[in-house]
């Protein structure tokens, strides 16, 4: 019987890590698909309000973003709400030019589908938002979207 006795070493065998890269790659692909690149670094507070009646914006390439909120660096900029376009603060009057720039960067056939997503901090007073909306109307960018987080509970 001793013939069939296999020889076993006392040490535990090392766990094979050969599949570890595959697992990490799956994680990587998940994140690549489900996330999008950060385009601007925020300079204003931007906690979006919550709402239930949300619609998904169609195509990211057709969406321009306008951020409104009080500045993060309050020592330098004060606490009054400011507008951020791309990477810099802007005045209300700059919105029209910004929209013209965004339009110019789009293919001509798609320009009329320009959608403006207003990312406004929930603590902001709507006065400044109204001014922005008037500028958007003057620039003929009429399709807007109030960006918000989904909320499940209803009143």
């Amino acid at each position: 019987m001793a013939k069939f006795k296999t020889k076993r070493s006392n040490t535990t065998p090392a766990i094979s890590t050969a599949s570890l890269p595959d697992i990490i790659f799956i994680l990587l692909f998940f994140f690549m698909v489900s996330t999008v690149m950060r385009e601007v670094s925020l300079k204003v507070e931007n906690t979006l309000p919550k709402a239930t009646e949300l619609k998904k914006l169609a195509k990211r390439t057709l969406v321009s973003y306008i951020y409104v909120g009080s500045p993060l660096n309050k020592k330098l900029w004060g606490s009054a709400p400011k507008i951020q376009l791309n990477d810099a603060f802007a005045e209300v009057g700059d919105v029209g030019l910004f929209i013209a720039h965004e339009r110019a960067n789009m293919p001509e056939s798609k320009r009329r589908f320009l959608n403006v997503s207003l990312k406004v901090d929930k603590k902001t007073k709507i006065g400044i938002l109204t001014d922005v909306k008037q500028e958007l109307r003057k620039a003929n960018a009429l399709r807007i979207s109030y960006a918000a987080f989904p909320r499940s509970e209803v009143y």
Partner: protein
Amino acid sequence: MAKSKNRPSTEINASSMADIAFLLLIFFLVTTRMAVDKGISVVLPPWSDEPPPETELQDRNAFIVVVNSHDDLLVENEITDIKDLKNKAKRFINNKGEDPTLSDNPQIAVISFRGDRGTSYERYIGVYNELLAAYNELRDEYSNGTYGSIYNDLDSADRAVVKKLYPLRISEAEPLDYGEH
């Protein structure tokens, strides 16, 4: 020459592959954010320099919602809790001439929503959301009764029919300016 035939195949050491993948993963974690492009879609009225024309609108067909700079809600001259707003709006839109104080029919009923420049954005969106919810629920109820599925699942022809019956008529009026500062 014969030697090479018997040589055992060498394995490529793949242990650093995990590290490379980890680096890539962390890079993507840092530079990206979750895709949350959702929002309440609104179409603004086109700009005109002339004042808007006076429209003949009977009092019963206008539903006036006002939010002041203290975020208090006034619906048809009554202080209202936001919890009741949706049902009030639904009753107003879907009245179809029954109650003489509410609208004649959904096609000419208008909800006028006016804020104040000092209203907080959270409150403004909260109220707007309730008004939109009233319309969406009415559309869903009608399409459930007629077509047996909710509005969003209808095909475009049926959807146009429901949309014509319950057109979205919320007007965002120019806010008052009493309490911004």
